[in-house]
């Protein structure tokens, strides 16, 4: 049913697409975790103006389509397709990651902060030794979700000629008129990234839960 000869005949294109999707996903994962954590800190820091900046970022970014963010970088700031797509992914996913981290921190009862602070720990120390180690357990599953979404969302690169899997899949299917098989093959390539990522998330969840 699935025509795998397409995969062999267009192997170079699929491979280049796969590599670019993988690279874009990895860069974007790293970037969005860093940016997301910064935004989350902004949102819960004991300093009002920072809270506002964080809230504005989250509300603005998560409420517009990823495609439009990528278009702004591609057509507006005139970055190349790959760069524009990866930057868009970072900025967009960071908003969701910030929310997940914030939710994890807020899930730790207030009494713990109060107890830590009254026992003489500074705000930073409270975070480092009391709140974050507990929060991370709560945060791992939603962060895993966001990571998987990010990998799949990287298909947005195909729209701005970012030379990713989806871009080459479109070209191959349009040139060969084989549609079903091409996209099934593409699905397998995405699974090759997302399934290991899924297992990694599960592993982290198990390890971090048992250590406390």
């Amino acid at each position, binding site marked *: 049913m699935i025509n795998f000869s397409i995969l062999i005949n267009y192997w170079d294109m699929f491979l280049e697409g796969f590599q670019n999707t993988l690279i874009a996903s990895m860069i974007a994962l790293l970037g969005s975790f860093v940016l997301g954590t910064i935004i989350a800190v902004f949102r819960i820091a004991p300093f009002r103006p920072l809270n506002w900046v964080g809230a504005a970022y989250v509300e603005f970014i998560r409420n517009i389509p990823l495609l439009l963010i990528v278009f702004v970088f*591609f*057509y*507006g700031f*005139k970055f*190349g*397709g790959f760069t524009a797509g990866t930057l868009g992914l970072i900025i967009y996913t960071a908003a969701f990651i910030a929310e997940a981290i914030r939710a994890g921190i807020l899930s730790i009862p207030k009494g713990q902060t109060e107890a830590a602070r009254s026992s003489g720990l500074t705000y930073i120390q409270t975070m480092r030794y009391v709140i974050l180690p507990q929060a991370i357990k709560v945060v791992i599953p939603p962060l895993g979700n966001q990571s998987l979404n990010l990998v799949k969302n990287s298909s947005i690169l195909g*729209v*701005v*000629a970012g030379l990713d899997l989806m*871009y080459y899949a*479109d*070209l191959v*299917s*349009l*040139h060969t008129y084989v549609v079903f098989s091409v996209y099934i093959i593409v699905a397998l390539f995405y699974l090759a990234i997302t399934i290991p990522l899924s297992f990694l998330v599960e592993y982290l969840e198990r390890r971090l839960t048992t250590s406390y």
Partner: protein
Amino acid sequence: MKKLIFSLISLTMIFVLAACGGGNEEEANGESGLDAIKERDKLIVGVKYDTKLFGLQDPSTKEVEGFDIDIAKEIAKEILGDESKIELKEVTSKTRIPMLNNGEIDAIIATMTITEERKKEVNFSDVYFNAGQSLLVKKGSPIKSIDDVGADTTVLAVKGSTSSINIREKAPDATLLEFENYQEAFLALKAGQGDTLTTDNAILYGMAQQDNNYEVVGDTFTDEPYGIAIKKGNDDLTEAINEVLNKLKESGKYDEIYEKWIGEKPKN
């Protein structure tokens, strides 16, 4: 005797009706032949309503305008003596040949490329517009024709279009970036994501008119001649239309219409 004549008449009528229903080709000169058009004193033409420069309906006035429409009007003027003796019907690439064969329209003037395959189904007039693939560049670009497209050129095209296949053959060294549709490809050209955009010149001329910082350069490097389609076997009308086209070209009226819509004089 009366009875015999009566039955003969009814018999012939049955045959005529049967002929109408079955053989389309025999009665091609019936409802949309030159005589029929003159009798009804109106030319019915199938045109596009959604194609820039060639046949586009103005949403506010409902008026359809374009190169194809002006050519149609000239034909009505020559054949019927008045350019307003014309009825336009909207066709799409899918509906135009069936509508012509049904006799709903007398002719198709709707950016239709003459191909061998289509010639089996319809009559074509002489070429009335030399369409083909060309290049759109920012004014002042070093690219003047397809020969200037080399290894350090980035060409923009639309995913899966024949233009993108053609450009790979004509300029295999160039980098090709393909987009979802023409608007996005043009936007990418404006954003400096590539050096030139390639597709049919008819579309490129439309873009050049949207933004006059851009121009179409070089000759077409593929041949997609547009012709007027007439019902198969309707040679009277085909000849009449060819005569009109010749007259238009000789009188300079054709160049006038061409310049009005395309924005420049016809090349060669």
